[in-house]
């Protein structure tokens, strides 16, 4: 299988694709071996759990959202099918799509508070929702049959007769396989990269142009589909549904399965459902030991492994079977000057700030700051800690909205735009603490820059359309080129970011900004922790970026780097611009730098005591 712009799951390294096919075939042929096992509907129930667990893994494991309304969706889907079947006489193949729509609606509704609250807030709300099931069923007793439930739902028929048990089993299994493939297609697409990015680093995702709200809404909606199908089919198979079919215990089972197997791992839900399902079948599904074992299992799952069993195996695999990858050269010494291939930009941008002020409580972080960055130049903001540098950058990239003042790009005000909208206008940035998805490769992370602006749509990713392939190819090419520009060796681009030292992560962030083809590139201390050779490389890259007509807004403490890179310096002190000017043609000696900066500051004060420390470390002199 050709890998196209994919976040290839790490577990693919040790779980071969053939295992998937094998498991599928075994399950498809299962009725031949033991058709009597299907009669009680237990095996079918396991498939229902599996589908729901895949959905939960999608929204919790990959999306990071504690969205645990699955029993509500399963129950609602069951009742949808039950009511339509009894009152309208409709068969499963009509009611199931309708049930899926109902389930999606519920999933989106239950996810709505997620616009404002996240984490366990949403979990508590989900529980509240699950606790509502009996109340709602009782309140609409004439439709739902109250606590006794709805019986005589039309079963799956064939030629006007009730089909043998293996028929609905195979239908359910085929849907399960489809859900499995759909989940894989989504996760390994550019859309999946955006999903993981908004989970781990919402700011970085937004600064790369990802509309997190849209991604999360889509995740909620998609996670409703499997539960809708499963709930509806299960009601048809059992010819019965009730408020006791899926309860809080179902939440526990699904959560436990996903946690034990490994959340955010493809095989996690399969393994977890297999374990918990086997336990439940062993003691009997209605045994009072069932919740006890389930509870203990969930505690063990939550306590023992962070990434579940699959995650643990992954770690072992990496330790014993993978070459030690973090050592060795990170940067390509390919002889080419870095940044040589940066394509020039059409019209040079002009970023202007006028009278920008920001207060946090009693602290004035920015006091009427005005500056201009032109295309083709590097403007560096220096100043002591707490002088407002990062706030300035946050105002420019849209994470902080200024209390007063105007920010314009090419004369157009951007004040009111969210950061992801600004990314689409050509803003890109890096962060003081690199914000990268650690479980993805360098290349995938850099691709976020490209995908943020030209996202893969859900439908394209699901169906692997020609447009999907085109965009994936384009994003891969852009990202590869961006990595080359900053001098990342090809070997490094295939490593997971989690294996990289901090310095290289900073460079990856610059590459991500380049992949977005931004015209205004803002960098927050890009060379902190880099060695001299790497600093020189970044400096050259930034000069090349400027030479291509782009504008660079830099925050940096490292004076030799600043002086060799900047066209223009601005000194911030207590949120005000204290001084500005072009750097002198100074030699990189600490003494001269210190003298220069004291003069630059216009005072003899020791405001910059902290700043030249790094410079002294790098270039000891006098």
């Amino acid at each position, binding site marked *: 299988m050709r890998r196209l712009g994919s976040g290839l799951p790490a577990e693919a390294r040790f779980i071969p694709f053939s295992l998937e096919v094998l498991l599928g075939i075994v399950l498809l042929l299962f009725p031949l071996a033991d058709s009597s096992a299907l009669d009680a509907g237990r095996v079918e129930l396991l498939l229902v759990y599996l589908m729901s667990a895949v959905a939960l893994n999608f929204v919790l494991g990959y999306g990071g959202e504690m969205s645990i309304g699955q029993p509500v969706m399963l129950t609602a889907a069951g009742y949808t099918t039950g009511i339509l079947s009894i009152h309208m006489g409709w068969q499963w193949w009509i009611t199931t799509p309708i049930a899926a729509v109902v389930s999606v609606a519920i999933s989106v509704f239950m996810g709505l508070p997620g616009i404002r609250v996240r984490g366990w807030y949403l979990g*508590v709300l989900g529980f*509240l929702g699950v606790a509502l099931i009996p*109340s709602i069923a009782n309140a609409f007793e004439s439709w739902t049959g109250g606590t006794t439930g709805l019986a005589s739902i039309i079963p799956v028929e064939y030629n006007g007769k009730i089909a043998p048990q293996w028929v609905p089993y195979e239908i359910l299994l085929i849907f399960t396989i489809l859900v499995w493939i759909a989940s894989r297609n989504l996760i390994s697409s550019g859309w999946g990269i955006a999903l993981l990015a908004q989970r781990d680093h919402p700011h970085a995702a937004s600064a790369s142009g990802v509309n997190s709200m849209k991604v999360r809404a889509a995740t909620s909606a998609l996670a409703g589909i499997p539960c809708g199908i499963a709930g509806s089919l299960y009601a048809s198979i059992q010819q019965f549904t009730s408020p006791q079919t899926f309860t*809080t215990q179902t939440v526990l089972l699904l959560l436990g399965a996903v946690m034990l197997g490994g959340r955010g791992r493809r095989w996690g839900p399969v393994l977890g459902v297999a374990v918990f399902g086997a336990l439940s079948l062993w003691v009997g599904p209605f045994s009072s030991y069932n919740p006890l074992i389930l*509870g*203990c299992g*969930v505690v063990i799952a939550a*306590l023992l492994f962070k990434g579940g069993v699959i995650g643990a195996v992954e770690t072992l695999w990496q330790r014993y079977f993978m070459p030690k990858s973090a050592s060795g050269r990170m940067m390509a010494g390919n002889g080419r000057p870095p940044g040589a291939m940066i394509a020039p930009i059409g019209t040079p941008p002009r970023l202007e700030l006028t009278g920008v002020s920001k207060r946090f409580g009693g602290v004035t972080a920015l006091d009427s700051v005005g500056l201009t960055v032109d295309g083709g130049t590097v403007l560096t903001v220096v100043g002591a800690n707490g002088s407002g540098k990062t706030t300035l950058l946050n105002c420019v990239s849209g994470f902080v909205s200024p209390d007063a003042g105007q920010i314009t790009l090419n004369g157009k005000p951007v004040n009111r735009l969210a950061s992801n909208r600004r990314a689409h206008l050509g803003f890109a940035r890096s962060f003081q603490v690199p914000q990268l998805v650690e479980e993805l490769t360098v290349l995938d992370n850099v691709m976020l820059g490209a995908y943020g602006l030209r996202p893969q749509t859900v439908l394209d990713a699901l169906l692997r359309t020609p447009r999907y392939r085109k965009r994936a190819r384009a994003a891969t090419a852009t990202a590869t080129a961006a990595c080359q520009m900053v001098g990342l060796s090809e070997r490094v681009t295939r490593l997971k970011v989690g294996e990289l030292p901090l310095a290289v992560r900073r460079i990856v962030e610059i590459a991500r900004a380049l992949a977005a083809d931004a015209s205004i590139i803002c960098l927050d201390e890009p060379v902190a922790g880099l060695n001299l050779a790497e600093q020189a490389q970044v400096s050259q890259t930034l000069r090349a970026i400027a030479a291509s007509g782009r504008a660079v807004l830099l925050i940096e403490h490292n004076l030799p780097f600043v002086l060799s890179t900047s066209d223009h310096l601005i000194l911030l002190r207590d949120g005000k611009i204290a001084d500005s000017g072009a750097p002198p043609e100074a030699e990189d000696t600490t003494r001269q730098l210190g003298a220069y900066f004291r003069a630059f500051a216009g005072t003899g004060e020791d405001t910059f005591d902290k700043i030249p420390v790094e410079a002294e470390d790098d270039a000891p002199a006098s």
Partner: protein
Amino acid sequence: MTIPTLATFELAIVAGLAMGCIYGLVAIAYNLVLAASGVFNMATGALITTGVVMSYVLGQRLNWRILAVIGAIIALGAVAGSMSELIGVRRLLRGARSVSHDTMVSTLGLGLAGEALVALLFGNDIYPVPSYVSAKSIQIGNVPIPPLYFVTPAVLLIVAVGLELLLRHTEFGIITRAVIADPEGASLVGVSVARVVQWSFVAAGIMAAVSGFLAAPLLSASAGIGDTVTVYAFAAAAIGGFGSFRGGVVGGLIVGLVGSGLTPAFFNSNWSLPLLYVIVVPVLFFRPKGLFGRAGQFGSEGERRV
């Protein structure tokens, strides 16, 4: 819908407030732990169940004196609360950056196991628990009010005032507030954050078990009863504000009034939870911190990010 007479209207309000005090107590238990540790202790339901079941077993089957029952329940709540911290939380709080998902799941599992254990030992039957105080109603105006309805507000008041005094006027309280406001800063000046977290679990365990004791005569003793109370307490904590002390009390009273007082009396108890859900969702949407959740949780400065 029946047209309420004045007496039933007032009785519904009193009954709702009486239950509301129990929800408020549980909400404070949630919020205390939440403020101190950032953990939403989902095992609380099992602690409530334990309180309910013990007050039946000790008081009715074994005929213990009421003070002995209360003492045993407080001891049990303390032990069970610290157990939930020891097993479900301590390991996870060490090290990890974001623990909210993990601790939620681990305490959930613990709660389920605990409830299942109680169900195994106690069976699935429902046993009525007689009132701890006189069953004869006290006439106020023309409303007959069961004396039990005065007990829950009294206990809530004692707990609230006691906690307030403890947090504001003792060394331990100052340390606790420091941890709630700034755990990192507190640990840098030598405060043991872990110990404060442990104490918050113990205190919350006692509150949950005592609220079970209070709820027993009102709700009868059964194995799954804790879940019913926790669902209302969730709503109380959400409406009042997660992590807030005052919020827990006010949220509890609102939830009791709406969910246990007015809706069952004049409409249909099936609508209690859906109605509360419909209140909670917009509250969280427009005021994610709840009505009272803001800086100054439990008398501390600043606000804990959870």
